[in-house]
């Protein structure tokens, strides 16, 4: 019969139309500003810099190694390295960024910077309502705008943050253990030295072997 196919198709449309009244599965949209879907944990929008502790400048994980600046495909990151150094979370003196700017009008949210960062310093944000009236200054984020606490990172990416925290705690424990062995060794050496001074012997070889792996452990 001519027109059978059309009728079949219309039956399908009717099924969908009336189905939306009885089946919640068929309602596929949400009324956006009022209703919101929570972003997925893996969601990524624009990068931000993670800091530990309260003081963002002191706790910034970024050491201005400029790897992300080099690897960024659209070249939207600008970093100026500091002249002086500050201690990082394990206490090793590291450079820090004097300026760290990301032009989010150029950024294409590819996450390459996050992948190449060896210090877990740059992570992807999930905030997406970022419209601004100032399209030049408003979209060029500087260090103060980019720095966000680790608590925020834990909140938006719980799984990833837990992994990073575990890895960093391990590293810190290792560094502390190394420092402890170093101080112990130094104390022992001092004691030994005092003892040798008294007993007139040479324990210097054991002291040197203790300190070398400690230096290696600090990147």
């Amino acid at each position, binding site marked *: 019969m001519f027109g*059978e*196919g059309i009728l079949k198709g219309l039956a399908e449309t009717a099924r969908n139309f009336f189905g939306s009244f009885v089946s919640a599965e068929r309602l*596929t949209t949400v009324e956006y500003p009022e209703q919101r879907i929570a972003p997925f944990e893996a969601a*990524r929008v624009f990068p931000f810099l993670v800091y530990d502790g309260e003081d963002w400048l002191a706790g910034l994980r970024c050491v201005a190694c400029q790897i992300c600046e080099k*690897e960024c495909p659209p070249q939207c990151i600008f970093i100026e390295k500091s002249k002086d150094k500050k201690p990082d979370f394990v206490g090793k003196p590291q450079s820090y960024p004097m300026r760290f700017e990301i032009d989010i009008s150029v950024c*294409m*949210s590819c996450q390459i910077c996050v992948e190449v960062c060896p210090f877990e310093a740059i992570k992807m944000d999930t905030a997406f309502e970022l419209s601004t009236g100032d399209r030049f200054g408003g979209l060029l984020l500087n260090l103060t705008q980019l720095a966000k606490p680790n608590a925020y990172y834990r909140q938006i990416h719980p799984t990833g943050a837990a992994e990073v925290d575990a890895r960093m705690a391990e590293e810190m424990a290792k560094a502390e253990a190394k420092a402890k062995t170093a101080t112990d060794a130094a104390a022992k050496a001092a004691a030994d030295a005092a003892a040798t001074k008294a007993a007139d012997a040479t324990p210097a070889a054991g002291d040197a072997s203790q300190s070398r792996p400690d230096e290696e452990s600090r990147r």
Partner: protein
Amino acid sequence: MSESQSHSAAAGENPEGRKPGSQNLVSQRPESQKLEGWNRPARTEPEADGQLLEVSMGPHHPSTHGVFRMDVALDGERVIRLRPVFGYLHRNHEKLGEGQSYLSSMPYTDRLDYFCSLSNNWAYALAVEKLAGQQVPERAEYLRVILAELTRFQNHASSIGFLIQEMGASGTPLMYAFREREKILDLFEELTGARMMCNYMRFGGCRVDASPAWLEKARARVAALPGFVDEFERLLATNEILMARCQGVGILRPELAVNAGVTGPMLRASGVGYDIRKVDGYGIYNRFSFRVPLGEHGDVYDRFMVRLLEMRESVKILEQALKEIPAGPVMDPRLKLRNFRPKPGEAYGRIEAPKGELGFYLISDGGPNPYRYRVRPPSLINLTILEDMCLGHSVADVVLISGSVDIVLGEVDR
């Protein structure tokens, strides 16, 4: 060219196929219309009796899927000349790839065919893996197949939706297709972090592993996909208006398709059984049982049906892959992403992207960035025979034919 017969009026005997109106357009074309190399002189002399109307369709025409222009010369309603003009979206993709590291090119490949970013990722990763001689872990191969087939499914669904929309059915089929695509994009977002610009695959594996929860969700979604294909088929496949508009329109002869290098559903709709998943067996495709649907007439309707059937085959592959996916790593942790310098050499990695053969050709001189980076885009090469398919048809059919090619301008212009 037989000007007296429009496609719908030519109901005479046709030795080639069952449908009325199939014209052997290629053989009917005069010798003067054949391509004479790249610098073919512009044909200014009118080939019809009346005055020619030159219409510039595009670049801002909704039927052209982006910024693409067709310079059409019309005699009345019939197209007697059509020249595709592209380059409006040229982004210097290949030269950019030569100026930056291998890793940095990966997110740019998402932006070639932005409907199927995961297929593009795979083709590029395949080329670099060939170049560097890297092995891919088993689980990563399965994940790649799953994601590529999901990509193919959503691409074909929305491509059919766009095709029907260009026929005038504005809304319903496209919205149904997008409803389904949305569910697949949710899967992509949960796994890769982005809906369209996934940037997921890496040389030697995938970026992150899929959680068991994700795989469960994917299984549930895939189990619902055949229902959608059935619905789509009931909605469209036997619709008389659609059949009247599509059958016998835009016929592509298999000889011309092969000679022009057309690949993908376009070629298979013309009856040539060429699917790189079968021919090349890249990845682990030789482990799955699936069939390659072929058309018989090479018209718009066959292209539509081939896509519909391919969606069913994709679901078959997905079910097998999701059942068999093994545990294990998705990437060798010793592989380094930065300072990646493959040894000097060249490699061509190709996959069956939803639109055809997508290939990446790379030459390495041992440096951190490729010496030559070349993309073989299926959309561009499938577009080259647009004029041959459109000659003799009306303007409304030109829109339909260009829709059935399934182009994405990000890939055509690069």
